[in-house]
C-alpha cells in the first residue's frame, strides 16, 4: 500500500468534513437571521443591530464562515436554548447510550448477517437458502419502527417477558437492538452470500479441494478470508444506515440516546443541538469510511487510489 493511496484517502476524508461543515453553515445562514428569530418582533432596530454586531452577523459572509469554522475547531458548537448549556456537552453525555445500543445491534448484525449469509451460500439452492433469502427480503422491506411496535406488542404487552422502553438492565437492550439490527443484518446476509458464492467458484477453491483440504478448512481458511474483504466493506459503508436507523428506533423504545435527542431537537428547532449532532455523525462516518478504505487497500493490494469506480 503506497503512501499516495493513504494520502489520497485522507484528503478525500478531510474534503468531506469541510463539505459537511460548509453544508451546515450554508443551511444555517439560509434558514434566516437568528437575531430576528430569537428576539421579539417589536425589538427596537438599534438593539437588533447591537445583537447582530455582537454575534458578528454584520460581517461579510467569508469572515462569518471563517469565524464559524474557528469556533468549531475550538469546540464551540453553540448553546442549546432548551438546556441552556453548551450543545456539545448535551450531545456528548448521550453518546455512551447510543454506542451501547449501536454496538449491540452491530454485533447482532455480524453474527446473524454473516452467519446467515454463510449458511445460505453453503446450502445454495436448498430450502435453507431460500428461507434465508426470503427472510432477508422481508427484513429489508420491514420499516424498523413498525418492527419495533410489533415486538413491543408481542414481547412486552402480550407475553410480558421484556420491558418495552427505557434503559437499565440488559433486558432493556434486547428489543431495540433486534429492531435496529434486522434490516442491517438482512443487507449483510445477502452480501455475504453472494461474495462467498463468488469465491466458492474460484479456481483456487477447486485446487484446495483437489489437494484434499478438508471441507471445514476450505471454508474457514480459504473461502472466508477472500470473501471477507467485501463483507468488511459493506459492514463499514452501511454504518450510515445503522446511524439513521438509530434515530428512528431510539424514540420508539424511549432510549435516551443521541437519536432521540436529535428528533426532539428537530421538533423544537434547537439548532445548536442539531448542528452538533450532524457534525458528530459526519466525523464518525468520515473516520469509518477512511478506516474501511485503508483496511480494504491493506487487505487487497490490487486496490489502488481510483479503483473505487470499478465497484460503483
Amino acid at each position, binding site marked *: 500500500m503506497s503512501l499516495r493511496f493513504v494520502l489520497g484517502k485522507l484528503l*478525500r476524508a478531510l*474534503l*468531506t468534513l469541510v*463539505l*459537511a461543515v460548509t*453544508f*451546515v453553515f450554508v*443551511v*444555517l445562514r*439560509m*434558514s434566516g437571521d437568528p437575531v430576528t428569530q430569537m428576539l421579539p418582533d417589536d425589538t427596537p432596530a438599534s438593539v437588533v443591530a447591537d445583537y447582530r454586531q455582537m454575534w458578528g452577523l454584520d460581517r461579510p459572509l467569508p469572515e462569518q464562515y471563517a469565524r464559524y469554522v474557528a469556533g468549531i475547531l475550538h469546540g464551540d458548537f453553540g448553546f442549546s436554548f432548551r438546556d441552556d448549556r453548551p450543545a456539545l456537552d448535551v450531545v456528548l453525555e448521550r453518546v455512551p447510550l447510543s454506542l451501547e445500543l449501536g454496538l449491540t445491534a452491530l454485533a447482532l448484525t455480524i453474527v446473524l448477517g454473516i452467519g446467515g449469509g454463510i449458511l445460505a451460500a453453503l446450502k445454495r*439452492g436448498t*430450502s435453507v437458502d*431460500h*428461507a434465508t*433469502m*426470503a*427472510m432477508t*427480503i*422481508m427484513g*429489508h*422491506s*420491514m*420499516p*424498523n*419502527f*413498525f418492527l419495533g*411496535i*410489533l415486538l*413491543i*406488542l408481542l414481547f412486552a*404487552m402480550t407475553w410480558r417477558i421484556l420491558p418495552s422502553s427505557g434503559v437499565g438492565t440488559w433486558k432493556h437492550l434486547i428489543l431495540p437492538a433486534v429492531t435496529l439490527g434486522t434490516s442491517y443484518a438482512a*443487507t449483510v446476509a*445477502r*452480501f455475504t*452470500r*453472494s461474495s462467498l458464492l463468488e469465491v466458492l467458484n474460484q479456481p483456487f477453491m477447486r485446487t484446495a479441494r483437489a489437494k484434499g483440504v478438508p471441507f471445514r478448512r476450505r471454508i474457514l481458511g480459504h473461502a472466508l478470508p477472500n470473501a471477507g474483504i467485501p463483507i468488511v466493506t459493506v459492514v463499514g459503508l452501511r454504518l*450510515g444506515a445503522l*446511524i*439513521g436507523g438509530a*434515530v*428512528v428506533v431510539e*424514540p420508539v423504545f424511549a432510549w435516551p440516546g443521541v437519536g432521540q435527542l*436529535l*428528533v426532539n*431537537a*428537530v*421538533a423544537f*428547532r434547537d*439548532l445548536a443541538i*442539531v*448542528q452538533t449532532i*450532524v457534525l458528530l*455523525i*459526519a466525523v464518525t*462516518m*468520515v473516520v469509518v*469510511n477512511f478506516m474501511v478504505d485503508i483496511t480494504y487497500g491493506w487487505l487487497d493490494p490490487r486496490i489502488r487510489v481510483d479503483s473505487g*469506480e470499478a465497484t*460503483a
Partner: protein
Amino acid sequence: MSSTHAETVSPAKADAPRRRRRMPLVMVLCSGWLVLCVVLAIGADLIAPYGYAEQSLLHRLKPPAFLGGDPAYLLGTDGLGRDVLSRLIFAMRTSILIAFCGTLIGSTIGTILGFLAAHFRGWVEDAVMLMVDFQAAMPFLIIALAILAFFGNSFGLFLVVVGFHGWEVYARLTRGLVLQANAQGYAFAIRTLGVHPLRIYVRHVLPNILSVLVVQVTLNFPEIILLETSLSFLGLGVQPPQTSLGLMLGEGRNYIATAWWMAIPAGVAIFLTTLSVSLLGDWLRDRLDPTLRTAQQ
C-alpha cells in the same frame, strides 16, 4: 408467511433458463397489490367510506367489524372516532404520491448530473463526484432532519427533501454508463455524423442505459417510502390533519395496547408496498439484465 415466500420466491432467483418463464405467482400478487394501491390512491375520494378528518366522538376506538365492532367501520375507528379504513386509503394516497414525486425528483436530478459529469469531464465531473461522495458518506435521514429543523416543515419542502434521497446513486450510475456508451461504436458513429450532443444523449444513449436506471428506481422507491414514513412516524414529516402511513402508525403507537387496529394496518400497508416493489425489482433486474447480479445493491 415466510414458508410460502421461501417456496415461491425461489423460481425468480433460480438459474437462468428457468427465469424466462411467465410471471411467477408472487410477482402477480406483488403487481396486484401495487395496482390496488394506485387505484386506491387515485380514487380515494370516491372509494373511502368517510372523509379522512371526519370525526365522530360517539364512535371512538371501535374495534374492526370482524372483531365484533360496528359493521359501518370495517377496520374500526381511532381515538377521535375517525374511520381507520378511510384514513388508510387517504394515507396511502399521500405516501404513494410523495414516493412517486420523490423518485421522479431524485432520478431526474441524479441522471442529469451524471450526464453532465460524463459529458464535460474535468472539473464538472470532479465537482459532481465530490458531492456524490459526500452524499454517500452522510446518512440521508440525518441531512433531511437537519434541513427540516433549519427551515421548518412545510409539505413542499418535505416533498423536495425526500425526493433528493438516492440522487447520488443515479448520478454515479449514469456517469459510468454514459462514459461506457460514449466509448462504444454507435455513439462514435452518430457523433461523427455531426449530431448535436443533446440529441445523441436523449435519443441514443438514454434508451440504451434506461433498463439499469429503471432497476435503480425499484431499489430507490421503497427507500423513499421508508424515509417518508419514518419521518412522518417521528412527527417530523407529513403534518396533521393530513395523513400518511407513517403518521398513522405514529399516532396509533400510543394506543397500541388498547386499540392495535389503529397502527397495524398502516404498518402492514407500508411493509407490503416496499416488499412488493423490492421483489418486483429483483425479478425485473433478472429479466432486464442477466449480467447484473442480485446482490449488487
